[in-house]
């Protein structure tokens, strides 16, 4: 990746995303929900289409040319993702989504390893994906799930984290960038602290990998999960990057075809990494699409993506701060946060906000964002959330903020 990527030319780049030229209720689409899922560039759509049209065959089995081509494209997808996050290919396990990646760790590591009294530490700002699997593990093993509190400013309380971290702690689960608050957590420091007491660390990178340069090995964590559809890729594919030694020490998650070395009536032995964790025919087209997405992002440059989003987020925070009575959650400095901005208005429920501004073509998310424990900490049932990506412009944010004003008048 070049270090000094050219700044993003939004007008030119938008031409790569066919959906962005459509209208909604007669107004141009203003898509501000990329934290839920991103739109897809032609490069991704074409790569998936070409696989089905030109080389459709099952992978890793056939000796014929078609199967070899399909396998090369599938494994090429893995290579592109591995390059993007700086990880060796054998430690990149393809899953269905981020949730499945975390469940893989919960089942293949957690349930086999944890004992009654062991502690799993997660944070109050986790997505349900990094809470519920651990609660299931706790229910089976007798381990206990504890929560690192969030400060009123929307950051992790690192003193409380230090205090909660003991020799009983076996796993620390932490989100890299919050999908509600936008907070960027100090995951390398958290990993160092956790390793010092012998705990493993799982980082949920669902909201970081799409939006900023991420080098997984330099974080040092044991597991790093993310999801394809939020990074310009298709649905149905996610990624678990694991530290090689840890993945090697683990038993498989799911059993079936692909993941074996040998099967006899007496038992089976496992395939090498990463296939040991990929039972059954994988999502082939999806992996190819994800590879195309990783290549697209790498070509644009993740530094450029990040720089563009810092600018947009600063503009968003400024524009929203002008709105009478608004509460904005999370850090207020765009330089230290991601592009998901949650807010609430005293007189307008998030549902009404989302419904009314949809009339002007603006898509924002309303709800608990799969982070109910965090909602409770924030003292709200739901928030509205606007989130940007590389294809958004400052003008779109202005359209959104104007629509918010109109919505308010409508329900006055």
């Amino acid at each position, binding site marked *: 990746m070049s270090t000094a990527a050219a700044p993003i030319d939004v007008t030119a780049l938008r031409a790569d995303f066919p959906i962005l030229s459509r209208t909604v209720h007669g107004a141009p689409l203003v898509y501000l929900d990329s934290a839920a899922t991103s739109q897809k560039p032609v490069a991704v759509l074409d790569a998936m289409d070409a696989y089905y049209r030109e080389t459709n065959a099952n992978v890793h089995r056939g000796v014929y040319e078609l199967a070899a081509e399909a396998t090369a494209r599938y494994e090429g997808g893995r290579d592109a993702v591995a390059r993007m996050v700086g990880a060796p290919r054998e430690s990149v396990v393809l899953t269905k989504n981020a949730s499945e990646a975390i469940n893989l760790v919960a089942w293949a590591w957690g349930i086999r390893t944890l004992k009654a009294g062991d502690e799993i530490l997660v944070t109050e700002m986790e997505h349900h994906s990094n809470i519920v699997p651990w609660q299931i593990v706790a229910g089976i093993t007798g381990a206990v799930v504890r929560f690192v509190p969030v400060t009123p400013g929307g950051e992790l309380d690192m003193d409380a984290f230090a205090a909660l971290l003991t020799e009983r702690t076996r796993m620390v689960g932490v989100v890299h960038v919050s999908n509600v608050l936008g907070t960027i957590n100090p995951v390398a420091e958290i990993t160092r602290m956790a390793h010092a007491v012998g705990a493993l660390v799982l980082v949920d990178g669902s909201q970081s990998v799409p939006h900023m340069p991420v080098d997984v090995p330099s974080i040092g964590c044991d597991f790093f999960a993310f999801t394809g559809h939020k990074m310009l890729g298709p649905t149905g594919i996610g990624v678990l990057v694991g530290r090689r030694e840890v993945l090697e020490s683990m038993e498989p998650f799911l059993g079936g075809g692909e993941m074996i070395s040998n099967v006899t009536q007496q038992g089976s032995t496992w395939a090498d990494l990463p296939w040991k964790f990929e039972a059954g025919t994988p999502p082939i087209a999806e992996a190819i699409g994800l590879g195309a997405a990783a290549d697209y992002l790498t070509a644009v440059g993740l530094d450029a993506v990040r720089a563009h989003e810092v600018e947009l987020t600063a503009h968003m925070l400024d524009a929203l701060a002008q709105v009478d009575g608004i509460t904005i959650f999370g850090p207020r400095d765009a330089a230290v946060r991601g592009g998901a901005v949650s807010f609430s208005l005293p007189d307008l429920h998030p*549902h009404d906000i989302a*419904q009314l501004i949809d*009339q002007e073509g603006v898509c924002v998310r309303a*709800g608990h964002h799969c982070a109910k424990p965090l909602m409770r900490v924030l003292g709200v049932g739901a928030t509205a959330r606007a989130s940007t990506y590389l294809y958004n412009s400052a003008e779109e944010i202005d359209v959104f903020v104007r629509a918010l004003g109109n919505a308010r008048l409508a*329900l006055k």
Partner: protein
Amino acid sequence: MGGLDDLYQDLILDHYRRKRGEGSLDSPTVAVDQNNPLCGDEIHLELNIVDGVVTEIAHTGEGCSISQASMSMMSEALVGKSLDEALEVVEHFRMVMHGSEQGDEDRLGDAIALEGVAKYPVRVKCALLGWMAAKDAIQTYRREGEEVA
């Protein structure tokens, strides 16, 4: 607001702004909590039941305009009904929300105005929240009655 006339009619907004039944009862016969898993809204509903008739309804909690207006309309529609009648009206409202029955104003009262919500599947849950709480309250009351008896 163009195409949203169904959702944001004057009658609905009137109930949203001036909620009927908002508040608490002194010693309700039965009280339940209900939440909308979609958006996290939580409501608390209280009923007074005398001789098998719903005599008073009160509610508190958070919600969007549709769920709050619907709660308000429900509190009017079910007061004075016997438990069986009330459950029947709730079921009728549910069918209307799912587009499988035509709304009957005699039974629904102002809630007839919510008929158009059926076109917005995501908002149907909002509209149903209070009504499902009422059903839950009546069923809870009956269950507890059986336990006592």
